């Protein structure tokens, strides 16, 4: 069964450094998402991406965050200058069709980011 993959599984970085989290969505999917989960808390939506542009973003997704689909398979989340409070598990997800249709979102295994 196709699955969403994410790299790296863990990343440790110093405050102020840039990090890039990578995801390979399911190959025929059209919608891509990033979510995050601070330790012990619920999963929160960050951003959705369709047709090579952001289609929706949350208030968490401020100017330090950016997303990109650099080629036909990868989907990346960049955090420009990491803060301590960015420490979290970051999940990538993808779904097959328009959000107007009922459709499962498939989640990757996550990248655990620790900012020191």
């Amino acid at each position: 069964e196709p699955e969403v993959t994410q790299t790296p599984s863990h990343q440790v970085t110093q405050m102020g450094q840039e990090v890039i989290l990578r995801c390979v969505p399911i190959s025929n999917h059209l919608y891509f998402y990033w979510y995050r989960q601070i330790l012990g808390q619920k999963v929160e939506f960050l951003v959705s991406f369709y047709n090579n542009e952001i289609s929706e973003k949350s208030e968490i997704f401020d100017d330090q965050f950016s997303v990109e689909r650099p080629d036909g398979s990868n989907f990346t989340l960049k955090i420009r200058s990491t803060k301590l409070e960015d420490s979290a598990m970051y999940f990538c997800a993808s779904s097959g069709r328009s959000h107007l249709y009922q459709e499962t979102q498939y989640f990757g295994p996550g990248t655990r980011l620790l900012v020191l």
Partner: protein
Amino acid sequence: GIQVEQSPPDLILQEGANSTLRCNFSDSVNNLQWFHQNPWGQLINLFYIPSGTKQNGRLSATTVATERYSLLYISSSQTTDSGVYFCAVKFQGGSEKLVFGKGMKLTVNP
């Protein structure tokens, strides 16, 4: 405001017992998913169930969309069922995001 509430927040069971997890949501939805978060933090998709009933082995789920709730049943629980269970919904109205509940921590003791 728009909310997803799960109950109970925590549950401790003996192996072999049955359990019911509830998810209430505040508005009409066009997507509802149940997840199990394993000890490694991975979100395992259990059910996509915006309405109706589905079964998968010892797990089953029912969503009554008109009454805005969903139930996840775990029968004959095993220690490997331990973890956090999340309900997540996509509300009607055009938003693409899944809104997650706070989760329910299940501990199954041998």
